[in-house]
């Protein structure tokens, strides 16, 4: 594996809708600052934002980790939360356990995880019911997923 050029970690607070999306903005600035292709930045930003929203909606809190190597952008989002009992079901578009108030805010339409997978070249998700969920995404810098 190529060595890490850069690593950043951000904390996300559960239920903090006001600040939700801050780490995706910071990550966008970093990737822009080092001249990553805008199309790849866009994909990374969507991944981080969706994962961040999942943490804000369902979990107590979590962390976003950005790792940049010469080959890829790696994003890991790990939360302390209820976990997902049936991952296969959760990965289906439109499947959501969000409460009505979330939907009224424009979230929880069951597009988050599928959206993350769609924008990733590599995607893994693991969950421990009662403890939390970890999503790992990778975007290849050469654009050949």
């Amino acid at each position, binding site marked *: 594996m190529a060595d890490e050029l850069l690593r950043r970690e951000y904390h996300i607070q559960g239920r903090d809708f006001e600040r939700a999306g801050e780490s995706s903005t910071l990550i966008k600035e970093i990737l822009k*600052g080092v*001249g990553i292709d805008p199309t790849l930045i866009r994909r990374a930003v969507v991944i*981080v934002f969706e994962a961040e929203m999942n943490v804000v909606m369902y979990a107590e809190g979590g962390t976003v980790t950005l790792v940049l190597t010469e080959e890829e952008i790696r994003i890991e989002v790990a939360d302390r939360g209820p976990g997902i009992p049936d991952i296969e079901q959760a990965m289906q578009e439109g499947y959501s356990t969000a409460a009505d108030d979330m939907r009224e805010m424009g979230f929880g339409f069951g597009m988050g995880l599928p959206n993350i997978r769609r924008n990733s070249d590599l995607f893994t998700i693991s969950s421990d019911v009662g403890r939390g969920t970890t999503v790992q995404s990778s975007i290849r810098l050469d654009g050949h997923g």
Partner: protein
Amino acid sequence: MAEYTHGFRIETESCNGCLACMRACPTHALRIRNGVVKLLPELCIDCGSCLRVCPTGGIVPLTRSLAEFSGFKFRVAVVSPVLYGQFPVGVSPAHIVAGLKALGLDAVWDYAVEIEVVRRAIAEQVQKWEGRYLMVSVSCPVIVRLIQVAYPRMVDCLIGIQPPREVAGRALKRRYSRELGIREDEIAAIYITSCQAKTISILQPAEGGRSHLDGALGVSDIYNGTLAAAREWELTGREPAAEDLVRNASMLRWSTPDGPGGTFPGRRHLYVTGITNVIRVFDDIEKGKLRNLEFLECYACWGGCIGGNLAVDNYYVTRNKMQHLMNGLPELDPVTQAEADRRYREEDLTLEGPVLPRVIEPSGRDLRERVRVMTMAEQIRARLPGLDCGLCGAPSCTTLAGDVAAGEAAQTDCVFLGKERLGDLRELYLGNRS
């Protein structure tokens, strides 16, 4: 790197190094070096924020004077609808048109038709949308440039239809060339504008190619002369026999917060004005927070074109006057409708080329080197006080740190870190007063 032209000129000899422009610039394109402003042209999006705040008038819009068009055989004004809301109550649109002609313009163009034609073209594109992607109006040249510089992925969202002023420039040259038997390049198409940014879209269109307009005159450039001539008409108590160019409310609404998106019923439309507000909305769009939007109209000036930096009357009064004018008019008049029907069928309104992102190369030849420069900038930033006082000549501590890491500035430019810095500034700004 490509050369960038801008819609203003900095007269460094009148710059007093006061920091106002640097602090106002939303893209951090200005620095103060040795008490004089310096522009980083690739970052400038021509928003004109600096012009508004410069106390010495040292940043001059490149709008022109009418005399500069004297080389043309025939001079035609295309008038931003904002102009009709700029004059005192009692000065009618017909008086204003007569006033413009008295200044020496040979004709004032019937702009209502282009506005209607372009409104239809945009409406048709938005109707065809079917939920695939967001569409953003290209009316404001600053927004187009903001997207090129800071939101390069969004260039695909820009609606590929020429703004009405360009369609008008093309049409008026064709018509007068035919009617007067002179060449198109002997006819000047002059846009009367409420902001300096229209100048840049004439000098260097974002989509490449050439503008159909020959230059712009600011509302403030022609105001006094037009008012004096219009007043003479007003005193006669008669209406001049000029063509009736303000016939419908739709044209006037184009420049207000209600149009043109407001006329597309049932569409998810957002009207955003003020560059910092636009930046917030674009950020939300980029991260996917704002979805299902269909049509976005954004203007760099707060309040839209009515709030342009070359407008004379204040925003609220102008809006009120334009509303009064609209109240007495039909939404669309039969003359405009018939002419727009014909031209909509006949004319190609597509933008003459795609708008491409403006590539700004970060310092460092490869990714490893660029990460090193950025990490260094972060370390330098951590040593700075975070006051964003601007005395170093950069708008914020973060910008200074970036400049230092890129080798464009010295850490000792900060008054807290450079022992000599305050003394040098005292010398520079107070001179023999100290």
